[in-house]
C-alpha cells in the first residue's frame, strides 16, 4: 500500500516540478525580452508577471486539467472493469457471492451484538447511571435474580444527594391486564416514584409516575402504559388517559403513555405497563414485603452527580453503609443468626456498577453465544477474502498475457494497477451491497432463535461497518495482483508467454489455500462440537416421559379470587381435568418446568448429626401424583398422600413431608437411605429441621436439560396454592387435547385465563434455543466454509495442472504411469491440506476456552470431533484436487508436448 502511495505521490511531485519549471521559463524569457527593449530588471519582471496574469491561478487551472484527466481515467477503468467482469460471469459470481456471504453474516451478527451488548439506554446521559449491589451476606429473602436490594434501602439511598442526582428502583414481573374481553398476562415493571424523573424520560401522552405516586401503600392505583401496548392493543386511542383498566382484577387509572423509544431498563423485557411500588400488594399478590428491609426484590439504580466517578461514589458510600449495617443489626426483628453470619453481615460492602446499558438477564445469557457466533462470522469473512484474493490471483495469471501486451503497447504500470483496483473494488462493492441486502433476512433467522424484543433492522453504524470492511477487502484483494503486475519483467514475459511469470503467484496462492483449509477446519470443528452438544442434550432428555405431556398455568389468585377461594378453584380444576376424556393423569405444581427459573435455598439436614447443605437445593411444590404423571420414578419410599398436608387449622407452618432427588440422597447420605430423616429450609442455627423425608425420586431436568442439581419437593397444597401449573398426561398427541382442556377450565370459570399452554416436548425444544441456534448457524458456517475452500483449492490445482501439463506429458512419455502422474499433482494438495490442518489445531485448542461453557457432554478439544471434521475436510478437499489431477493424467503425451 505504501509503495503504491509513494508511487502516486512521486508522480504528482514530478508533475508539479515540471509545471513550475515551465512557467518560470516563460516569465524569465519575457523579462529578458522586455529588458532588451530598455526596461530595468525589476520593471521588466513586473511587466512580465502582469502580462502573464497570476501565476498561482494558472497553476490551479493546469492542475484542474490533471484532475479531470484522472477522473476520466477512473471512470474509464470502472467501465472497462465492468465489461471484463461481465465477460467472466463465473468468476464474478463466485467472488461476489463469497463476499456477500461473509459480509451479510457479519452485518447481521454485528447488529444483534450491537443491540444486545453495546447499546446504551435511550435516556438522558445514560453513562451517569449506576447499579447498586450488595457484596457479602445480606441475611435476606430474595425474589428475582441478581443485584437485588430492598425498597427501604432504595429510600435510604435517595437521601444521599451528595453522590446522586436521584436514585430509583424497579422490579420486573408479570401481571394480568384486562383492557378488552379477557385478562392476559403481560410484563410489568414495579417502580419507585423517582424512576422516570431520574432516567429523564418524558411522556408521550399524559404524565408519568412521579414522587407523588409513591407516598402511601395501596393509595395510588395508577399505571403508565408502554407505547407499543397502546398502539398495538388499544389502537393508539387518543382518549386513553383517564381510562380504567384492570390489573390483576383491581381497577387502575391510566395516567400516561411512555415514549416509543423507551422500553424499560431491561433489554428483552420491555414491560407493557409501569405501576408504582406502593401498589405492590395489587401487582404481586403472592408476596407483599414492601417495607421489609430484608426482602430483596428491587434493582436499585442511581444517577451519579456530574463529574463524580463510580469508583469515588463507591468509596464514599462505605462509611454510610457500615453505620447502616450496625444500626440494622441492633434493630428489633433482625433475624437470630450465628456469630459467623453476623460477622459476615457486618463485613458486607455496597458495590457501584456502571449501568449505562441497564441490566439484562438476556444479555448475560446471550453474551457468550453471540461472541462465539461473531468469531465464526469473522473467520467466515476472512475466508471469503482469502477466496476472493486467490480468485484474483488466478485471474491476474490468466490475464498476464493481456496485461504484458498492454504494457508493451505503452500503458503505464500505474494505469494497469488502477485497472486491477477498479476490478476488485467493483467486486467488493457488489458483494457488500448484496450482503447488506441479505443481512436483514439473516438477522430475522437469528431472531427466531432469540427474543422478539430485539429488532432485525440493520442500523446505520452497521452499514458503515460493513462498508468499511468491504472497501478494505477490495483494496486488499486488488493489491495482491497489482503488485504482481508491477513485478512483471516485460521482455521475458512476452517471450515466455503467460507460463512462467506468475510463479510467485502460485506460492502465494498455495499459502492462501493453506489459510482457507485452516479457517474451514476451525469452523467445522466448532460446528461438530455444537451439533454434538445439541445431540447429547436431546439424547439425555429431561428424565421423564415428555411425549404425552402438556402443561399450562392458571392463576385464580391474581384474577379476583381470595386466597382460600383461589385454592378451591385450583382443586376444582384438578378434579374437572381428571374427567376430561383422553386424560390419563393430572397433577399440579407451583411452577413450569424447563423455563430456566427455579427456587432454591440452602437446607439443614438432621440425621445422626446436623449438617448444612454446601450447595443450594432447588425445591418445588407438587401435588400427589405429580411424579407418576411425569413418569419420574420413585426409587425409595412413597409419593405424597393427603395425610402429608399440614393441618390448615393448626398453628403449623411449613410442611410435614418432603421428597428428595436421588442426587440429593447420594450427595448428603452417601450409600444409606435418607427415608425417615429430617430436613429444614435455611441454614441458621435456629432452623428447625422437622420435615420428614418420605421418598426418593430419580432426578429430572428442572431449569434446562443441562441441570445437574439436588432437588427437593414439598406438598403443593401446603401454602400459596391459589395459582400453579397443571401437568396433564394424555392418551395420544397432547396438542389434540388443548381444546377439551380449555373447555374444562371454562366450565369452572369462563374468564379465567389459561397461560402458556404447551406440550412438554415443545418446552424442551424451547429450552434448547441457544444450543440449536449455535448448532444450526455453526453448521451453516461450516458448510459455506467448506464450499469456499473447495472452490479455492480447485482453482489453484487447475492452475498448477495447466502449468505442469508439459512436464507431466514428458514424464508419461518416459514411462510414468497414470497413477504416479496423478500423485505428482495430488501430493501438492496433500501438503496444503496437511499444513492447513496443522495450523488449525493450535487455534482450536486456544479457541476452546471461548466455547467451553456452551458445550455439554463433549470437551472443547474433542478427539472424535476433530478427527471427523478433519476427515470430512480432507475427503472433500482431495476430491476437489483429484479432478484436475485426473484431467492432467488423461492427456496424451503427444498432446501435452504440443501444448506450447
Amino acid at each position, binding site marked *: 500500500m505504501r509503495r503504491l502511495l509513494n508511487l502516486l505521490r512521486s508522480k504528482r511531485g514530478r508533475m508539479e516540478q*515540471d509545471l513550475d519549471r515551465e512557467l518560470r*521559463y*516563460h516569465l524569465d524569457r519575457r523579462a529578458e525580452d522586455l529588458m532588451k527593449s530598455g526596461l530595468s530588471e525589476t520593471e521588466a519582471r513586473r511587466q512580465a508577471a502582469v502580462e502573464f496574469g497570476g501565476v498561482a491561478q494558472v497553476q490551479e487551472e*493546469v492542475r484542474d486539467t490533471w484532475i479531470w484527466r484522472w477522473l476520466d481515467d477512473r471512470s474509464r477503468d470502472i467501465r472497462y472493469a465492468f465489461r471484463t467482469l461481465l465477460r467472466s460471469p463465473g468468476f464474478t459470481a463466485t467472488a461476489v457471492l463469497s463476499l456477500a456471504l461473509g459480509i451479510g453474516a457479519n452485518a447481521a451478527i454485528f447488529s444483534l451484538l450491537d443491540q444486545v451488548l453495546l447499546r446504551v439506554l435511550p435516556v438522558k446521559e445514560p453513562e451517569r447511571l449506576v447499579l447498586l449491589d450488595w457484596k457479602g451476606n445480606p441475611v435476606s429473602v430474595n425474589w428475582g435474580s441478581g443485584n437485588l436490594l430492598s425498597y427501604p434501602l432504595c429510600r435510604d439511598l435517595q437521601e444521599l444527594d451528595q453522590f446522586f442526582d436521584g436514585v430509583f428502583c424497579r422490579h420486573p414481573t408479570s401481571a394480568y391486564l384486562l383492557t378488552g374481553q379477557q385478562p392476559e398476562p403481560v410484563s410489568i415493571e414495579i417502580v419507585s416514584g423517582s424512576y422516570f424523573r431520574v432516567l429523564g424520560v418524558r411522556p408521550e401522552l399524559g404524565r408519568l409516575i412521579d414522587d407523588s405516586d409513591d407516598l402511601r401503600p395501596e393509595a395510588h392505583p395508577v399505571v403508565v402504559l408502554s407505547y407499543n401496548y397502546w398502539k398495538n392493543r388499544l389502537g393508539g386511542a387518543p382518549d386513553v388517559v383517564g381510562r380504567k383498566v384492570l390489573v390483576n382484577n383491581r381497577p387502575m387509572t391510566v395516567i400516561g403513555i411512555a415514549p416509543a423509544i423507551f422500553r424499560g431498563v431491561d433489554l428483552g423485557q420491555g414491560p407493557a405497563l409501569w405501576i408504582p411500588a406502593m401498589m405492590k400488594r395489587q401487582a404481586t399478590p403472592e408476596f407483599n414485603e414492601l417495607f421489609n428491609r430484608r426482602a430483596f426484590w428491587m434493582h436499585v439504580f442511581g444517577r451519579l452527580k456530574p463529574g463524580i466517578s463510580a469508583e469515588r461514589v463507591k468509596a464514599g458510600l462505605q462509611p454510610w453503609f457500615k453505620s447502616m449495617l450496625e444500626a440494622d443489626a441492633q434493630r428489633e426483628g433482625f433475624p437470630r443468626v450465628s456469630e459467623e453470619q453476623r460477622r459476615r453481615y457486618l463485613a458486607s460492602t455496597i458495590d457501584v456498577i456502571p449501568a449505562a446499558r441497564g441490566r439484562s438477564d438476556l444479555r448475560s445469557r446471550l453474551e457468550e453465544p453471540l461472541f462465539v457466533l461473531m468469531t465464526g462470522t469473522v473467520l467466515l469473512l476472512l475466508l471469503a477474502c482469502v477466496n476472493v484474493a486467490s480468485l484474483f490471483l488466478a485471474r491476474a495469471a490468466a490475464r498476464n498475457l493481456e496485461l504484458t501486451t498492454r504494457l508493451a503497447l505503452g500503458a503505464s504500470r500505474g494505469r494497469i494497477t488502477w485497472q486491477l483496483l477498479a476490478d476488485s473494488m467493483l467486486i467488493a462493492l457488489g458483494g457488500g451491497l448484496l450482503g447488506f441486502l441479505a443481512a436483514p433476512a439473516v438477522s430475522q433467522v437469528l431472531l427466531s432463535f432469540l427474543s422478539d424484543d430485539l429488532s432485525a433492522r440493520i442500523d446505520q453504524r452497521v452499514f458503515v461497518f460493513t462498508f468499511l470492511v468491504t472497501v478494505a477487502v477490495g483494496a486488499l484483494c486488488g493489491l495482491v495482483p497489482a503488485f504482481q503486475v508491477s513485478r512483471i519483467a516485460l521482455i521475458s514475459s512476452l517471450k515466455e508467454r503467460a507460463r512462467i511469470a506468475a510463479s510467485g503467484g502460485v506460492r502465494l496462492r498455495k499459502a492462501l489455500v493453506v489459510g482457507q483449509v485452516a479457517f474451514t477446519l476451525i469452523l467445522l470443528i466448532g460446528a461438530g462440537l455444537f451439533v454434538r452438544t445439541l445431540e447429547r442434550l436431546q439424547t439425555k432428555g429431561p428424565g421423564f416421559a415428555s411425549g404425552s405431556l402438556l402443561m399450562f398455568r392458571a392463576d385464580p389468585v391474581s384474577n379476583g379470587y381470595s386466597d382460600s377461594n383461589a385454592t378451591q378453584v385450583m382443586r376444582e380444576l384438578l378434579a374437572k381435568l381428571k374427567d376430561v376424556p383422553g386424560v390419563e393423569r393430572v397433577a399440579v405444581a407451583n411452577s413450569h418446568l424447563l423455563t430456566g427459573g427455579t427456587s432454591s435455598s440452602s437446607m439443614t439436614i438432621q440425621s445422626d448429626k446436623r449438617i448444612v447443605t454446601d450447595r443450594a437445593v432447588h425445591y418445588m411444590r407438587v401435588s400427589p401424583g405429580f411424579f407418576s404423571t411425569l413418569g419420574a420414578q420413585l426409587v425409595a419410599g412413597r409419593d405424597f398422600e393427603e395425610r402429608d398436608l399440614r393441618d390448615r387449622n393448626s398453628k403449623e407452618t411449613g410442611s410435614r413431608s418432603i421428597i428428595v432427588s436421588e442426587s440429593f440422597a447420594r450427595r448428603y447420605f452417601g450409600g444409606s437411605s435418607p427415608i425417615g430423616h429430617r430436613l429444614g429450609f435455611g441454614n441458621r442455627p435456629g432452623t428447625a429441621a422437622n420435615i420428614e423425608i418420605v421418598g426418593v425420586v430419580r432426578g429430572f431436568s428442572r431449569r434446562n436439560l443441562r441441570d445437574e442439581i439436588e432437588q427437593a419437593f414439598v406438598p403443593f397444597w401446603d401454602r400459596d396454592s391459589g395459582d400453579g401449573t397443571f401437568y396433564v398426561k394424555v392418551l395420544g398427541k397432547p396438542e389434540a387435547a388443548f381444546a377439551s382442556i380449555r373447555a374444562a377450565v371454562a366450565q369452572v370459570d369462563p374468564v379465567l385465563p389459561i397461560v402458556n399452554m404447551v406440550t412438554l416436548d415443545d418446552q424442551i425444544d424451547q429450552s434448547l434455543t441457544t444450543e440449536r441456534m449455535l448448532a444450526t448457524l455453526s453448521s451453516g458456517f461450516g458448510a459455506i466454509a467448506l464450499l469456499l475452500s473447495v472452490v479455492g483449492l480447485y482453482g489453484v490445482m487447475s492452475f498448477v495442472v495447466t502449468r505442469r501439463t508439459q512436464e507431466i506429458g514428458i514424464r508419461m512419455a518416459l514411462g510414468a504411469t497414470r497413477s504416479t502422474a496423478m500423485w505428482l499433482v495430488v501430493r501438492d494438495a496433500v501438503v496444503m491440506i496437511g499444513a492447513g490442518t496443522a495450523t488449525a489445531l493450535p487455534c482450536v485448542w486456544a479457541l476452546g476456552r471461548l466455547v467451553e461453557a456452551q458445550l455439554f457432554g463433549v470437551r472443547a478439544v474433542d478427539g472424535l470431533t476433530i478427527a471427523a471434521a478433519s476427515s470430512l475436510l480432507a475427503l472433500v478437499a482431495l476430491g476437489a484436487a483429484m479432478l484436475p489431477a485426473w484431467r492432467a493424467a488423461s492427456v496424451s503425451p503427444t498432446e501435452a508436448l504440443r501444448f506450447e
Partner: protein
Amino acid sequence: MSTPRFPIPQGTLDMLILQIVSLEPAHGYGIAQRLQQISREAVQVNQGSLYPALHRLEQKGWLKSAWRQSETGREAKFYSLTRAGGKQLAIEKESWNRLTTAVRLIFNEGK
C-alpha cells in the same frame, strides 16, 4: 500596437495552438510570441491562459511534450503535434472554413 486588440474567441485558442505547433515543435513562450507575431499583434492572448490549454491538449493526446534545449541554451518544455493532434487540426480547420464561408455568404447577401 495602434490598432485595438480584440480578445480571442472562446474555443479557437486550441485550434491556433495546434496550428502553430504543427509548423514546428515549440515551447509555451514561443507559442505566445508567434501567436502575436503571426496575427500582427491583432490577437490578444492572456499569456498565462495558454498553459492550461496546452496541458489540456496534451491530456487529450493531441500534443506531446519533451524537455529540450531552447534557442537561449536553457531547457524548455517543447510541445509537438501527435498524429491524433494532426487529424484534430484538420477537422477543426475544415469546420472553421465552413463556418467562415457561411458567415461571409450571409454578410455578403444583398450586396
